């Protein structure tokens, strides 16, 4: 039996809701993992995964009409949900009067060891501003290329390249002191 495509399943689900299960089964795990990589928090990942699927259901007709492959669209929605969440978090922190440490990338100077370890790099990545963090994670840890990231973020390829470069510079700066000492 010929496998039904994502777009066909999406269209069919407008009449037969149970067909949406095909989409759900195909994408749940991937989206869950994608969101988790970006947030590193299980509870937030659960919420955002659910939000992603609700959005997909709500905008099925728009997605079908857009002509963008569904896979790219669902990644775009989920990444957008993460981005929205990060922004909300940032505002909340500001509102609570706390310094949002992630805003400024701090140099990791308190490490006594000479080698920069993975944990410090991870910390530096997590301290990157939202968009840069998302780009770095998708590029290095989800093996997505610049073109794919551009589609997901709905941005130009050159913009994504620029963001990645800036993110790498920020990381270098954050880790600079450590390595400078060594070198």
């Amino acid at each position: 039996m010929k496998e039904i495509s994502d777009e066909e399943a999406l269209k069919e689900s407008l009449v037969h809701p149970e067909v949406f299960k095909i989409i759900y089964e195909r994408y749940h795990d991937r989206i869950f993992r994608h969101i988790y990589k970006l947030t590193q928090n299980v509870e937030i990942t659960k919420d955002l995964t659910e939000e992603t699927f609700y959005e997909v259901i709500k905008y099925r007709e728009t997605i079908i009409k857009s002509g963008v492959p569904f896979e790219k669209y669902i990644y775009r929605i989920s990444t957008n949900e993460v981005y929205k969440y990060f922004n909300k978090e940032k505002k909340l922190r500001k509102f609570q009067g706390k310094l949002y440490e992630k805003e400024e990338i701090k140099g990791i100077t308190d490490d006594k060891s000479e080698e920069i370890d993975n944990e410090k790099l991870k910390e530096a990545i997590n301290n990157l501003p939202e968009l840069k963090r998302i780009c770095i994670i998708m590029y290095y840890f989800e093996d997505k290329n610049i073109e794919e990231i551009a589609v997901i973020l709905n941005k130009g390829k050159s913009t994504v390249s620029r963001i990645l470069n800036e993110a790498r510079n920020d990381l270098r700066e954050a880790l600079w002191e450590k390595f400078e000492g060594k070198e």
Partner: protein
Amino acid sequence: MDEEKLEKKLKEIKWDEVDNEIVDAHREKFEQSLLMYVEEENRKQVTKRKMRLSFAFALVGILVFTLLVSISRFTQGGTFEELIMKNPTELKMYNDIKALLPQNSLPLKIKINKIEEDKNLGITNLYVNLKNSIVIIDSKQRNIIGVGFPLYHAEQSAYRSQIINLTEREIEEAREITLSNSFIKRLSVKSIEVENPTVFVDSYEDNLPYRVGKVKVVTVNGKVITVFVDLTRNRVLDITDTQNVLGEYITRDPEIHNFFYDLGV
């Protein structure tokens, strides 16, 4: 730290992955509620689509109706305008009016301002852009049966038709037409008197027969109403009520009010 080292490090690093168990548990737990949500959302979409469709139908209906009315009005207006402009009697009349106007006045252009059909009388009144000027059309035959000013102005107007005597038979007909008029029937009539000589044959053409009888209706209070009767087509053309005999009827009865309003009384 140089670029290469960072790049290498970024490629080496292992980013935290979520446990499969957590993913599986969430997938199973969320599935049912999601499918229910799909069902609910589909229902909402159907309702929304139905509403949009009804709205579109209503809109199209209104547009079609407006279009039809406009076309009908336009066609009707065009037909009547043609009727007036091509009719030698009318042209003659307006030429006469024109001749009476001062030399330096603006050119006279006939325009229909309002069209009103009186289904009871089977006539259509065309209100034209000349003071008090109405052209009365036979609604069915699409002929001009009344010309120029309302008939009660005829005697004083620049446009005047010839006066002839009615025959005995015509006098009787004029009485009958007046008596059968629904508005006159509502009055307490004391007497009905057909004036003779009284007829306005306001046609310059022999091929436009138009004989009008002037009937004086006296009420029990001694007040007078003048009824102009079209003897050629057995119908009341105009009623004048200079003494406002019908005032109380007019205020009480919207149908009468409209009738007189239409006639410009």
